[in-house]
């Protein structure tokens, strides 16, 4: 970007930030008390003296004819932007006119935030994170929530040969896994069918069973218990085995605090701290990075956005309304208590994010304008954007 240009008859020179000195003669400053946030310059012609206009956010001359005529000088200082629209003019009545705009060196050196590299796909990252918060679980597979999956049950003898047997199967949840640090009521668990049978009735003595998962992302186990393994022979012992598995999505990546993101929303609904509620698909994370970078560069340079709930480490139902303590309301304003259920349904798969627009959990400087952020998400490939209370909600295709 060029920072110094020339054209006749007025000269611009960039040296200082967020301050413009309109210098047709000497300069000095006057003083101000409390600054206005946004200042609209009056319609007037200044032909003497040295005047300072300041605003904490912006200065413009929309709709006004603001003319600086030598030997007057004017200094404009604003926190984020100075817009000199048509109607502004600098006029020289004698000698060689010089219009000098001076910009702070820090601003001259400011560059747009580069878009972060898209996150790398990371199979099992969320699962590994969730497992680290538990112990004694050895998942052998991951099944998507609300899915049906075929497994095979069989019995082995002491020589590890497959033998026919009667067996029964039952399922249990490992409690307080995947960020669900609440267990009252207990979480629903997957179902298995049939839950008992004689393996000798099936080819290769492998009995097919269907595991139907719930919408809850968690770790579960199937207990397989032979029920007549002695088969009439003396001295044989039935040994129960367990098959651990995860219900969830194994490909979510972690969205950490960074130069553009400030995590919020943790430690609020018994779903762990901010390390548990910021997991996302690679596609959605790429879009969120892109939207956020564009938004900040265009509207709020040097700041971050506050990212609230995305998804749990392996996704699944994010039941933020499991207790009346959280004061949830439905779309008609009625109280909602829905343990292990929606709302927040769109946060089940790591495709949606809530970005703060109010100071409830976010510094004022990091809050977003909802329509503008929705627009950025839309350009970044979001398929659905809307206002969600005090947040901009952006959602990408699965």
């Amino acid at each position, binding site marked *: 970007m060029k920072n110094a240009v020339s054209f006749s008859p007025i000269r611009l020179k960039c040296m200082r930030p967020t301050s*413009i000195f309109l210098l047709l003669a000497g300069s000095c400053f006057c003083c101000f008390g409390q600054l206005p946030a946004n200042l609209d310059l009056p319609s007037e012609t200044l032909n003497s003296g040295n005047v300072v206009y300041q605003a904490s956010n912006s200065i413009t001359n929309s709709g006004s004819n603001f003319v600086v005529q030598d030997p007057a000088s004017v200094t404009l200082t604003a926190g984020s932007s100075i817009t000199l629209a048509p109607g502004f003019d600098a006029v020289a009545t004698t000698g060689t006119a010089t219009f000098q*705009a001076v910009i702070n060196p820090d601003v001259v050196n400011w560059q747009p935030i580069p*878009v972060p590299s898209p996150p790398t796909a990371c199979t099992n990252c969320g699962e590994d994170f969730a497992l680290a918060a538990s112990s004694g679980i050895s998942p052998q597979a991951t099944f998507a929530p609300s899915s049906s999956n075929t497994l095979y049950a069989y019995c082995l003898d002491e020589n590890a040969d497959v033998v026919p047997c009667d067996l029964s199967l039952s399922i249990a949840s490992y409690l307080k896994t995947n960020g669900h640090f609440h267990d009252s009521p207990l979480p629903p668990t997957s179902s298995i069918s049939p839950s008992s049978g004689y393996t000798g009735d099936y080819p290769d003595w492998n009995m097919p069973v269907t595991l139907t998962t719930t919408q809850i992302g968690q770790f579960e186990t199937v207990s397989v218990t032979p029920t007549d393994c002695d088969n009439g022979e003396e001295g044989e012992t039935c040994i129960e085995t367990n098959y651990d598995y995860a219900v969830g999505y194994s490909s979510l990546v972690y969205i950490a605090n960074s130069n553009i993101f400030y995590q919020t929303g943790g430690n609020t609904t018994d779903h762990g701290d901010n390390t548990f509620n910021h997991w996302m698909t690679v596609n959605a994370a790429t879009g969120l990075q892109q939207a956020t970078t564009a938004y900040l*560069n*265009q509207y709020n340079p040097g700041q971050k956005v506050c990212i609230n709930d995305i998804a749990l480490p392996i996704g699944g139902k994010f039941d933020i309304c499991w207790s009346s303590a959280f004061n949830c309301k439905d779309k008609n304003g009625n109280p909602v208590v829905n343990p292990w259920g929606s709302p927040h349904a769109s946060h089940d798969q790591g495709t949606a994010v809530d970005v703060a627009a109010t100071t409830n959990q976010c510094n004022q400087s990091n809050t977003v304008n909802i*329509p503008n952020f929705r*627009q950025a998400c839309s*350009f970044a490939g979001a398929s*659905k954007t809307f206002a*969600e209370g005090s947040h901009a909600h952006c959602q990408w295709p699965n």
Partner: protein
Amino acid sequence: MSPILMSGLIAFALFFEPLSQISAQAANVQQSVSDNQPPIPIWSGQGSVPAGSGDRKVFLSPDQHNVIILWPNPDGTESKKWFDLHNTIYPNLRVHMESSSGIFRYLYDLGNGEQSKDSLRDFSVVIYPDQHVQLASAEWTVGAIFSNIPHERVGIPRSPSGVLAVWTCKLEDNRFLQPGARTNFTITTEARPGFTSAATEHFPHLDLTDEWPDEILDQLEPVLDLKWIQYHFITLGPRYGPDDPDAGIAADYIVGIEELVRTHRLAQDSLFVKEAIADLDAIASGSSAHFTITQKPASELEAEILSALELSLHLAYRAPK
């Protein structure tokens, strides 16, 4: 005096060293290329919903400027509600291209037609992914590059995707481009010109909140898809990298011109078009001869194409002696 915008701590992107070697200006083709099929069923809102609608709650009005929604009531009944999509826009776009020392500058002049009902609130161009590209705008934001998401060039068949250069207006500042108004945008890049697409729209189309039923939000998705809801232009813009071979560029131009002929945006019997195609055929075949075009462009679009050909392939106009 020119207006000066210093926004977001970036300033003076408006001003450039003189780039005077080659310059051309022409009005662009003024027809949306997104005039494809409506993405959801159309219903007048009168009488019963169209047969076979099943559980559909969202329909487009016949003029495609509204959605008609069967909104659920607490008592289980439904109310019919109309929502304006704010897509009654008739924008127009001109592009002026020039180059100097291997740097190309594209000046887009966007107008919102007098007959539009809605303001314009963003503008985007699909461009070549040049790391050093600079964007500027006289009145809107400085612009942003959506570099990590490949973007289709709408209406240009077989073209590779590019990245999106986007300008928006700060919605709370009320700087929308009202009907009858114009504004401009600048791209400075090392990428050479070729056919690409640009788009504009009002935003937001609907003030969606989480109070809208999920099934309605789901059914609105295809309506709010940018490919359908935005007004798309075929235009000229940064398309080719500095090292892209002339033969490939020429072949691409042929595809683009033929598409414009097919869609009646260029006249099939235009002498300019015929001569340009003949020259481009030769370049695409590997000829390194120096070609000229002796037929004067007969339309603004042809003039714009000639300007791009001069900059990309040095295919210059020379009046017959």
